[in-house]
């Protein structure tokens, strides 16, 4: 009995030693020499492998940033400025600060604002739906609400609100990696500057139809009336193809456009409440 046990233990130990030696030599033989700085940079990176930087993942980003002569063209949207500063320090380079960004869903066609005209019964994917037809409302441009952005988001930062039927961004979790922007077949989501104290003003509509058509489809669509563009003292608003767009680099957040917009398509977020005017038009409509 004891003999069997001893023999078994001896065998296992011998096998273990043998494998250890083999593994050691194999590891030596196939060892890849790598710039140690790559490991350093990779450890600074968030490690989400989201691809938001345009590279294949965090390791590829580290590899390429080490090889590149400068920090130009490299930015980790997830880690943002603190991470980029750290990487620059580790590599002994200079880095310029970028304004922090956030994903913005430019559609407010909730179920209440934008009545459904038919029922989609296919596979629940915006991409499949968009390739099939204009959508289940009178608006051909709005959010389809099937959640391709939600599936693409690695940070659990965007969700289709079941009551509104449109995608809503969780600002605290959004890292502006841009995955949702690429996933949206309607190109509704845009990365915009996060703004001072997270305050932003934007046109929450991309409907290019003529005003009358838009108005019929959605109560809060941009009808291209150009009132906002005329009001804007900074020339930040352009109206093209019947839809207004606010250039966030020029916008000074005076919010005059918000007041004049007849359909409440221009949204202001995270501003302290004003006494007179209704604060967030998109909430009043729900």
């Amino acid at each position, binding site marked *: 009995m004891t003999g069997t046990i001893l023999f078994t233990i001896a065998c296992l130990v011998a096998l273990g030693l043998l494998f250890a030696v083999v593994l050691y030599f194999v590891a030596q033989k196939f060892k890849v020499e790598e710039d140690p700085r790559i490991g350093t940079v990779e450890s600074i990176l968030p490690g989400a492998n989201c691809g938001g930087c345009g590279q294949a993942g965090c390791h590829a980003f580290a590899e390429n940033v080490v090889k590149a002569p400068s920090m130009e063209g490299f930015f980790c949207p997830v880690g943002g400025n603190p991470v980029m500063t750290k990487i620059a320090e580790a590599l002994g380079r200079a880095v310029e600060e970028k304004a922090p960004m956030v994903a913005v869903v430019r559609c407010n066609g909730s179920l209440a604002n934008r009545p459904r*005209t*038919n029922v989609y*019964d*296919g*596979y629940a*994917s915006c*991409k*499949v739906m968009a*390739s*099939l*037809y*204009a*959508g*289940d409302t009178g608006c*051909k441009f709005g959010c389809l609400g099937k959640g391709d952005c939600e599936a693409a988001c690695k940070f659990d930062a965007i969700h289709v609100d079941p009551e509104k039927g449109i995608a809503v961004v969780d600002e605290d979790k959004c890292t502006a990696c841009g995955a949702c922007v690429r996933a949206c077949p309607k190109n509704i989501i845009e990365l915009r500057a996060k703004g001072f104290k997270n305050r932003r003003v934007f046109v929450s509509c991309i409907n290019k139809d003529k005003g009358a058509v838009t108005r019929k489809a959605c109560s809060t669509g941009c009808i291209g009336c150009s009132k906002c563009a005329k009001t804007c003292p900074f020339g930040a608003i352009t109206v093209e193809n019947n839809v207004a767009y606010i250039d966030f680099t020029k916008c000074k957040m005076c919010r005059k456009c918000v007041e004049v917009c007849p359909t409440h398509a221009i949204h202001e977020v995270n501003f302290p409440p004003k006494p007179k005017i209704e604060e967030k038009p998109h909430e009043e409509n729900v």
Partner: protein
Amino acid sequence: MKKTFRIGGVHPHDNKISAEAAIEIFPAIETAYVSMAQHLGAPATPVVAAGDKVKVGQVIAEPSGFISGYVHSPVSGTVKSVGPRADIAGNMVPHIEITVEGDEWMEGIDTSDRIITDIPYSPEEIIDKVKKAGVVGLGGASFPTHVKLAPPKDKKAECLILNGTECEPYLTSDDRIMRERPQEILIGGAIMMKALGVTRGYVGIEENKPAAIASMTEAAKAFPQIEVVTLKKRYPQGGEKQLIDAVIRRQVPSGALPIDTGAVVQNVGTSLAVYEAVQKNKPLIDNVITVTGHCLPVQHNYKVRIGTPMSKILEVAGGLPEKAAKVISGGPMMGRAVANLDAATVKANGAILILTEEETRRRPESACIRCSKCASACPMGLEPWLLNKLSRAGGMFDELEKERIFDCIECGCCSFTCPAGIPLLDMIRINKAEVMKIIRSRAKK
């Protein structure tokens, strides 16, 4: 043994409930909306402006590329506007809106019932006449017919196959024209054979249309070079590749065109349009549309002018029933669901099918049980379950290409047969488009 194609296929219930409804001429409409995108390829360029007077058969738009086509006015009256209008999917497409005034035809169009058998034209003249008449494939793909009648120089056509299979359930428009106008269809076939320079012709008809087979066989006695072939009932026999396989036992290799097997396939409806274009100088301005569905009290086969709003057709057919849950342009397997009932008919519209919720509602999806029924049903010998798995993994385009996703003909057999209710074709279609994009961009390099 009746012929059929050799790989895959399914047997949906054929539901040919409108087969006994003779073709009726659809009443005159007040306004026609003629789409500029009625053919595969570039949309036609309008050559009329608002306020112009047009007659039936007058050219109102010209082709804007090699694969494009003429569009003629289906009605006489005044052009009200030229501009975008929503098609059945709700997408904006340029249309010409014509207010109908009377029914005045262009000079030179023979509107009599006289059947002209002689074909005095040369192949070039035939192809030109077909092109000028705006004839497109009426089987569904609306490929311009004149392009198909002039195969590339290095390819030699050997035979013409007329597609009278109508393998889609419910549809009966081809069945009706084969019963009512067999002679004209066969003359159209003979015209196309002359244009192609071939001496052999076939008409493939599925066995569930005995009356059409009888009338075509009878008429074919006068055309010794055309043979009527009875085919087993099996979907998707009307697919170009499947029909060639069924009739002449040749399979189009992957990536090749049907002409590589020496066969040119044309729908019987197209054949009739070619006859009218060449012998009667009548451009393609109307087509036969089946209006059917179990929830409709009466089934119809209407001869409808192109540009008639679908809502108008439904109104004349007795209105949309209360139980209607889905309106489909075409058959239940490959037709397109209509999102906008005000959309106007186009040349290739063969049917308006109305299904109830029980008949059409998608099933809830459950787990794949790996029964391989989709692979057995796929007429292209693909493995839909695998394509679905790779598609859902995301980004695996190389693997999808290796599994020949681009061979998919989107017939829907896989989704139809899947016991787990997995929307296989939804996934495959979208990824096929991506793979095709990659292949094209690679070819450009």
